[in-house]
């Protein structure tokens, strides 16, 4: 079956511009996560959605970052007024249950802020 998909796969933008990154989780998965991975680094948690509950935004690095999940499915991560330090791979993952067991990752969006 279809896995987690993300778009765009690559995004180049100018400093100060806003960007939107999209994630389509596996159908039926109730949990959705966003992570950021800088070159050669581990994954940094950003935000977590679980069903209709309020999201856990504790990992968002600044108020320029926001995310929403519409209809319990597709999620969009928005970065406003991008900075060069925002350049990274943004990974989305989904999980079928209410726990964090076995997260299924998408291929990521590679963001480059010039």
């Amino acid at each position, binding site marked *: 079956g279809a896995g987690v998909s993300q778009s765009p796969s690559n995004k180049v933008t100018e400093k100060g511009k806003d960007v939107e990154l999209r994630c389509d989780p596996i159908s039926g998965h109730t949990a959705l996560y966003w*992570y950021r991975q800088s070159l050669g680094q*581990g*994954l940094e948690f950003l935000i977590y959605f*679980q069903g209709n509950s309020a999201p856990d935004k504790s990992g968002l690095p600044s108020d320029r970052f926001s995310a929403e999940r519409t209809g319990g499915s597709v999620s969009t991560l928005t970065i406003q007024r991008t900075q060069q330090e925002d350049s990274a791979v943004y990974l989305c993952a989904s999980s079928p249950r209410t726990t*964090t*067991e*076995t997260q299924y990752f998408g*291929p990521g969006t590679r963001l480059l802020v010039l």
Partner: protein
Amino acid sequence: SQKIEQNSEALNIQEGKTATLTCNYTNYSPAYLQWYRQDPGRGPVFLLLIRENEKEKRKERLKVTFDTTLKQSLFHITASQPADSATYLCALDINAGNMLTFGGGTRLMVKP
């Protein structure tokens, strides 16, 4: 604060040998620990989960141990193959039900 350490240096081994990767953590008692594989340009792929009451878990050529006293997990690949070359990440559940915290990963290179 919670800290997860994996050897940041690449591990180079010869094909057929056993690769052993280490994951150490501090300041937490996770209910379980996971290992993922990540290939360049791709998202991580889940490999194994081991719970705090399990000492060892196996899957084909993979074996994971979990020592909650030492706060350490070892990840073994037996009879390694060049196709096993990738970065391996460990992850802990530090806020039950909410999120995983990942280590920085260890890159494994298996030479033919």
